[in-house]
């Protein structure tokens, strides 16, 4: 047991570090705690990914025939750790890399692969994922956006929501209902959609924490050529499962904290504890201790998952526990951080304008929802890890249009 790189990992890490060093002037670097907005720094974000791609640090586990490096998930994780260490912000095409690309690889035509994959890796094209709708969140297969065949095209109408990066995206993978007379999972079809096509409207969606990382996307008679279909008509759910499985791989991370790192909380406590009375210090230490323990429990569990990758394994459904427990730990960290602010805790930011803790506090409720609610994650863990039986479902058979939704 150890927490060090094995020789191959160490060698690869040194390789990545050298490349980042060499290209440092061409790369975007974010300030600690302050996240850059891809929409306002789009050009630098795209350039950063292109430079990294040309250095061979993007699409590491992708097959070489599609522009990847034919590497391992561990190499990709190491590269990710080094990007963080170099304060490179999240890649502008992380949705494309993590979800859209793998879906095109698995289900696209040779022509689609040819046209899209290399450009995606270089962020010549940025991609988004158009699945969720206002009336279908956890129950994704209840979606209502329709695609109707018209000659060589399909005509799409409907609305998507919670679409990350739609405001800068060039393409998206779009899940539609093409046969409402079949059961909900059977009437779906997936497409690649050109986000610049006539009839596509993107509207940023402001969140309670203030930022606008999500968008609404409206489709009004948007025409998609049949050649842009991904998989057969009616096979959209199977295609989407590929995407979602890759999403789990993307978030099943290796021990990184959710929200503010617990070391930051410890430093904050060091600053703020002395200002409290002795009784208050006792209570604050309980809160800080509890937050630290919960965070470390999640972090070290992440290291165990990472070790599985390192030994050539794949992340299983237990990765959902990382998000569930990480969210709970994040809430404890945020709450301890806010309470340590004393009189500033009732304001949106501290007197010096720092809103680290209040910002994290306002970010946590969304985190317990986006990317799988706590409730959905518990279902997944209960059924796929513990083997408990699922609930009976009445919505899987019968035509969608007949009310079986």
């Amino acid at each position, binding site marked *: 047991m150890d927490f060090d790189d094995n020789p191959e990992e160490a060698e690869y890490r040194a390789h990545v570090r050298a490349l980042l060093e060499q290209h440092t002037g061409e790369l975007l670097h974010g300030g600690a705690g302050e996240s850059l907005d891809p929409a306002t720094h789009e050009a630098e974000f795209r350039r950063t990914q292109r430079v990294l791609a040309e250095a061979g640090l993007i699409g590491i586990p992708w097959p070489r025939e599609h522009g990847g490096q034919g590497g391992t998930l561990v190499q990709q994780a190491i590269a990710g750790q080094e990007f963080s260490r170099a304060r490179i912000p999240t890649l502008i095409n992380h949705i494309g890399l993590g979800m859209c690309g793998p879906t095109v690889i698995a289900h696209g035509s040779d022509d689609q692969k040819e046209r899209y994959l290399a450009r995606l890796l270089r962020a010549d094209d940025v991609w988004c994922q158009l699945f*969720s709708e*206002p*009336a279908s*969140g*956890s*129950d994704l297969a*209840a979606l209502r956006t329709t695609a109707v065949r018209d000659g060589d095209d399909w005509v799409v109408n409907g609305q998507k*929501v*919670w679409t990350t990066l739609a405001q800068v995206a060039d393409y998206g993978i779009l899940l539609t209902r093409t046969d409402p007379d079949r059961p909900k999972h059977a009437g779906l079809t997936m497409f690649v959609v050109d986000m610049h096509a006539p009839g596509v409207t993107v509207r940023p*969606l*402001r*969140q*309670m*924490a*203030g930022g606008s990382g999500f968008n609404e996307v409206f489709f009004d008679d948007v025409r998609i050529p049949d050649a842009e279909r991904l998989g057969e008509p009616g096979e959209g759910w199977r295609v989407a499962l590929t995407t979602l499985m890759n999403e789990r791989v993307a978030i099943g991370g290796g021990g990184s904290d959710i929200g503010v790192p617990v070391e930051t909380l410890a430093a904050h406590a060091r600053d703020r504890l002395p200002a409290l009375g002795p*009784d*208050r210090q006792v*209570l604050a230490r309980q809160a800080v201790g509890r937050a630290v323990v919960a965070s470390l429990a999640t972090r070290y569990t992440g290291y165990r998952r990472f070790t599985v990758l390192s030994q050539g394994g794949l992340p299983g459904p237990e990765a959902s526990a990382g998000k569930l427990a990480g969210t709970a730990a994040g809430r404890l960290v945020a709450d301890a951080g*806010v*309470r340590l602010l004393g*009189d*500033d*805790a*009732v*304001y*949106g*930011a501290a*007197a010096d*304008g720092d*809103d680290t803790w*209040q910002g994290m*506090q*306002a970010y946590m*409720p*969304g985190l*317990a*929802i*986006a990317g799988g*609610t*706590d*409730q959905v994650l*518990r279902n997944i863990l209960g059924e796929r890890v513990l083997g408990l039986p699922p*609930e009976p*479902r*009445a*919505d*899987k058979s019968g035509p969608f249009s007949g009310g*079986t*939704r």
Partner: protein
Amino acid sequence: MNFDLDVDQRDAAAGARAFFTGSASPAAARAALEGGAVEPGHKALADIGFLGITVAEAAGGAGGSLLDLAVVAEQGGAVLAGPSLVTAARAAVLLAGVPELAALLADGSTAFAVLDGPVDGSHASIDAAGATLFLGLDGGALVVGAGEARAGQPMDATRGLASVRLTDRRVLREDAGELWARARQAAAVVLAAEDLGAADRAVQLGVAYAKERQAFGRAIGSYQSVKHMLVDAWVGVDQLRSLLWWAAWAADAAPDEFPLAASAAKAYAAEVFERAAETLIQVHGGIGFTWEHDAHLYWRRAKVDRLLLGDEAEHLDTVARLAVAGALRA
């Protein structure tokens, strides 16, 4: 035993509900975050007489009980109204011996705020941002004066929080420590009443959405995870109402029980409202954490109120000390 509101109090609550529903809203609370005015605002609250409910009749008030005020405050809390009736309750206790100032409180001609902490640089104090005359405790004496308010970036803009430095001060009463403590207990109870109203509304909104929103072929409220979360929030609200009524009643009818009851209500309100607001967001899923949805406005209020006038830890400590000292009814 008759542990229930009487007919007059029920009528007052219904009237207050109509007033607040027509004059304040979560939408106004949202607008206030971007610089809009707090609704219904000081003047409207004065005009309808809510600022003087517990002010003596001789000073132009209604001479009502704290319970009378609490049932009204609950309705204001339900729609996140501002400014808070906490200030009216607290100032009325402090000014009971100063009828000329109490009259200014009741008729609304002066906007008071009561300062927590040192008067030459107070803690964040409720409605201090919009006030013109401040009451504070200065070396054991009750003082009144004008001051300069410095408001921080709001988390919940309806609370009008600001830190104040008094620029002049006049002593109203020496040795006011006991009076001050009683006023703060009354304020804690009214804050708990506003929290009760807000938490109750949060549960109602959550229940309504859970009945309507479908997932996997049925309403999400039929799933135990959602149903039980809402039940736990509702049980908390229902029990908070009991503690709140007891505390508000005790202020006038059982002064010996009041300090413990007030701290119990405030401590429990902090927990119940926070849980109700978190539940409201979680039940709504994605839409629940958008700026345009009302859920975060309840959540903001909950995150702020839990810390005002003493947080849960302070009041639990008080409850324990009083209980150990024998303050529970046998």
